[in-house]
């Protein structure tokens, strides 16, 4: 989580300095969801996420250096600069994609679960998606199919109160989205998404259920985007009171306290310092990495290879 937060902060600074290309969707305040969930999984398990996937990238074990390189469009990025921050994928870690089509991470994870089921493998997949995404048609279709076929998938709804600039109450006919699980005959529960332990426990239960072959579950993790929709957003739609209340519930200080109790404050400080060094180094190396060279994409060429076309 600390890694993610430091990554986000550094990205925010670089954006302000005009050094990023296009907006960055920071997940400050939501780290507990992605990190807590990914911690339940092994590299063999799949996870899909949204345009706001940094916590999942980090949680699933990806290296900050190559994440940063991708965000800055470098040859050394996870996708050689072709995908970018929203569409990053890393097969080795089962991180099968950030996805910037809202809702698309949901059927994506279910398709992987179908593949797991058909091949009778001991893996699961997890779909992370937002409260805005929960209103899309593919969310409904996917939940119905997944529940019907008992696919080994966990639906992790990252409810951060907003879809872009619009409050949840302007987008959803009901305030509590986990209730919709009943319409598919699957378990649904609401949890504190800022409590990394609660996230870990809920996802563990759902993961076990999925592994047992009992099918999907819906977890609605309530959380909040402390830094708005993206670095391009002009703000103004989140009230100061709301922001302040959620800042008090920031998952990082919360976990810091809990960890300090068990590990001692020094251990925690050491871990944080190491994270800071790692992020520092990641940016330093990545920003010095080369830009990719252009190569056309052979399978996209619309004429037969022997042809003279394209």
């Amino acid at each position: 989580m600390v890694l993610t937060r430091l990554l986000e902060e550094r990205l925010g600074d670089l954006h302000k300095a005009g050094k990023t290309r296009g907006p960055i969707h920071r997940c400050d305040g939501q780290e507990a969801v992605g990190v807590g969930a990914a911690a339940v999984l092994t590299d063999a398990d799949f996870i899909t996420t949204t345009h706001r996937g940094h916590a999942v990238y980090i949680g699933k074990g990806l290296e900050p250096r190559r994440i940063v390189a991708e965000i800055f469009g470098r040859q050394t990025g996870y996708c050689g600069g072709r995908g970018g921050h929203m569409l990053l994928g890393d097969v080795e870690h089962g991180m099968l994609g950030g996805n910037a089509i809202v809702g698309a991470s949901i059927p994506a994870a279910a398709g992987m679960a179908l593949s797991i089921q058909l091949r009778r493998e001991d893996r699961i997949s997890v779909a992370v998606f937002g409260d805005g995404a929960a209103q899309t048609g593919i969310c409904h279709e996917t939940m119905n199919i997944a529940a019907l076929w008992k696919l080994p998938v966990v639906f992790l709804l990252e409810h951060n109160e907003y879809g872009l600039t619009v409050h949840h109450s302007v987008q959803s006919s009901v305030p509590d989205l986990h209730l919709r699980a009943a319409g598919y005959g699957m378990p649904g529960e609401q949890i504190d998404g800022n409590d990394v332990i609660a996230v870990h426990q809920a996802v563990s239960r759902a993961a076990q259920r999925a592994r047992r072959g009992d099918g999907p579950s819906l977890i609605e993790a309530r959380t909040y985007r402390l830094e708005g929709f993206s670095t391009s957003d002009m703000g103004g739609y989140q009230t100061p009171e709301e922001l302040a209340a959620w800042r008090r519930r920031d998952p990082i200080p919360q976990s810091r306290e809990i960890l300090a109790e068990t590990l001692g404050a020094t251990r925690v400080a050491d871990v944080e310092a190491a994270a800071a060094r790692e992020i520092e180094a990641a940016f330093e190396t990545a920003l010095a990495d080369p830009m990719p060279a252009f190569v056309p994409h052979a399978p996209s060429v619309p004429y037969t290879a022997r042809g003279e076309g394209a």
Partner: protein
Amino acid sequence: MAMMRYAEALNRALREEMARDQTVFVFGEDIASYGGVFKVTQGLAEAFGDRVRDTPISEQTLTAMAVTAAMTGTRPVLEIMYADFLPLSLDALVNQASIYNYIWNGQVTMPFVLRTQGGGGVGTGAQHAKSLDSMVAHIPGLRVLAPVTPADARALLKAAIRDPHPVVFLEHKLLYNTRGEVPDDDTLGEIGRARIARAGRDVSIFATSRMVLEAEKAAAELDAAGISAEVVDLRSLRPLDLDAITASVGRTHHAVVVNEDWRFCGYAAELSATIMEHAFDDLDAPVERVATLDMPIPYAETLEREVIPDAARIAAAARRALA
């Protein structure tokens, strides 16, 4: 060699590939217990159990699931009942299937096949008679195939299933009952190769899917009038066999293109542009474009037959090209 229906040839391809490769599975609406509304998947559920699934009516999600199932070790074959429903699959095709092999820097391939059938001629009306070829042929990273003979149906479906990239496989409702010889060997079709359906000297007619049959009728009619037409069955809409096209035009110096999708921004437009770009100096006249009239497909027989191309319109276009 065995004589069989187009639908049977497809069925055989599915059976053979499913038997050969455990990762191939088939899903779609009414395809398991009922065997598909056009009976292409008949008997597969009995033979392959769980690997043949009836689905809810959820084209958009099914297509999206095919993409990621394909990316994680299986080879899905998804049936979309009518080509008219392709728009529902399009987000998954253009925003998902199309991109990953490239944007993830080659980390994944997506060996899946989306089978569907289009076309008019039987009074199914504006929502069940379209051919939306150009919408799918437009998408990078995909292959689009449209075999017209039972032999090609089998051979190309097998090739499609084995291909590492997403394939949209376009069938036609009026082809399922047509019959033809199908070889017994394990022939794979070659993606991106056209076929000369009938050799000729005066004009080349490039056609797709069922329009190849209409073009052959037109050629017979023209023959009677002393015009020798070559009919080229393109088979592979993307990638397109440019060499076969330029070679044919190099021989005949006149070209007609025929496709059952709408004319404007349709697949025939691409053919026409491609030919004129690559064979401008060989052409003695502009390429004649024959396609479905630009309007919704009407229901009544007297109206529908005015809208969809047929041998008469193709023959007239060939005459115009030669005029």
